[in-house]
């Protein structure tokens, strides 16, 4: 992890509620794994002192370009939309444990909402290693579906489901997932963005003996393991354990997830 300044290259809305930010992170001298995150200062505004944890949407090691896809939700992310090309932002990262790829076989990614950001980074890495990637993308409306084109261009196969079209129920996603697992040689399944879908992925991983990973979100203060704000409960063996999302996570084996 490193504390450094990044220069903003681009910052624009990609849909009604989502923005994408591109930063020049030449000061970063270490690798970034999909699933890791950065703690970002949203502005110098005194009203929003805390950093925001944002997972990596894309990192190009060659050009040292780091991209975030972020949901404009409150004051902090609102402030982020005001930043312009040439502005500098303070970043702390990369933080946490990222995803791990399977040794072989195809990947199934099940994303909901902004959860697609971190899974996009995983899809990119898997494609760069010539692994087959299938993405089930769920959102409220077709307008909220993000990065479908980008993922398709990478060579991932994308299946979109939405609440508005009535295609996003857990049962529909289950049926589609099972079909893909049976027909496409899926060996690992990943999810982010919905507790209902996480539960589904947990069941699928267990039933079909797949590798499974879940990327979690949490409110954080420090982001590096000192403050214990982002605690969550996981299951290790037969024991429940309280761990920090920022350091032990944010990606956990799906078998360890304790879901409602």
């Amino acid at each position: 992890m490193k504390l450094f300044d990044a220069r903003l290259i681009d910052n624009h809305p990609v849909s009604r509620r989502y923005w994408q930010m591109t930063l020049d992170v030449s000061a970063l001298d270490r690798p970034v794994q999909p699933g890791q995150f950065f703690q970002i200062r949203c502005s110098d505004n005194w009203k929003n002192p805390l950093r925001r944890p944002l997972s990596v949407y894309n990192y190009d090691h060659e050009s040292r370009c780091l991209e975030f896809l972020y949901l404009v939700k409150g004051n902090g992310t609102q402030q982020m939309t005001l930043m312009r090309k040439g502005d500098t932002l303070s970043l702390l990262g990369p933080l946490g444990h990222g995803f791990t790829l399977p040794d072989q076989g195809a990947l199934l990614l099940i994303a909901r909402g902004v959860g697609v950001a971190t899974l996009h980074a995983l899809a990119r890495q898997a494609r760069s290693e010539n692994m087959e990637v299938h993405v089930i993308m769920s959102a409220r409306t077709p307008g909220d579906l993000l990065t479908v084109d980008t993922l398709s261009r990478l060579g991932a196969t994308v299946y979109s489901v939405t609440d508005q079209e009535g295609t996003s129920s857990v049962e529909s996603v289950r049926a589609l997932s099972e079909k893909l697992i049976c027909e496409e040689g899926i060996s690992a399944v990943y999810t982010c963005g919905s507790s209902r879908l996480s539960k589904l992925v947990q069941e699928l991983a267990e039933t079909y003996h797949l590798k499974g990973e879940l990327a979690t979100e949490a409110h954080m203060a420090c982001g590096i393991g000192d403050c214990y704000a982002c605690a969550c409960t996981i299951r290790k063996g037969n024991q429940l354990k309280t761990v920090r999302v920022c350091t032990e996570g944010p990606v956990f084996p799906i078998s360890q997830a304790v879901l409602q």
Partner: protein
Amino acid sequence: MTDLSVRIGSLTLKNPVMPASGTFGPELAPLLDINQLGAIVPKSITLSARGGNQTPRVCETDGGMLNSIGIQSKGIEHYITHILPFYQDYEPPLIASISGESIEEFELLAMRLDKQPGVTALELNISCPNLRDNGQAFGMSAETTDELLRTVRKVTGKPLIAKLTPNVTRIQDIAEAAERGGADALTVANTFLAMAIDTETRKPRIGNIMGGLSGAAVKPLIVRLIYQAHQATDLPIIGSGGIMNGQDAIEMILAGATAVQIGTATFVQPNAMNIITDEITDYLERHHIDKITDLIGQVDVS
């Protein structure tokens, strides 16, 4: 050469800047020069392991934050075998913050740590707002504060720092009680019991409903509390609450603080304590002040 050293009871610190308990840990080592700190204060330790409170445990508020961590802790034995050894190679003295659920627990913790050469002083967290209903804390009663200090005083010769709660009508009464009980210094203060509500969902913004407010927003309240406590006792005061830069630290010293603790600022900027120490030095040089101790309580109210 500017002299930043200060004395907290029998303890001499090379500068007045130290972390506030619960905001500092081994993870900061790559981001901050720990050897430049006046003291090391690891997170409060409890006798037995505690899981901490419900999430969300933090939320941002205007110019500050609420936290309700609830002292997640692995207990005193883990502290002695894992936390203390980690810091033994660093130069600054280590102040152990201890938190008990009863006076007896404080006594047991102090007895256990009294034998540890790696512990230079004890900070008694008699003021955590996140452990009992409605933020009740030992430090809300002068009588309990006196009794608690008196009990702990009997079992250790190490300097005792009482961390006071700001959630009282007259902090002077508690400061005097701590002094009577045998405290060597006071930390003024812990966080302010506070609450925030999400108007969209109508739910409290932290899991425990109420939490402790910290950050820049509380600084004027803390400056006032330091001023009041300084007038009531001769004990050295460690100011804590809302310091974001060197100027804020100087303000607390002028109000009567001998040293300062930095918490929320470290979340914003992990090397904040190093920057603040440099800014204090700059201030002293700019004002041609040789010793920082010359500034303590020097607010001009004439």
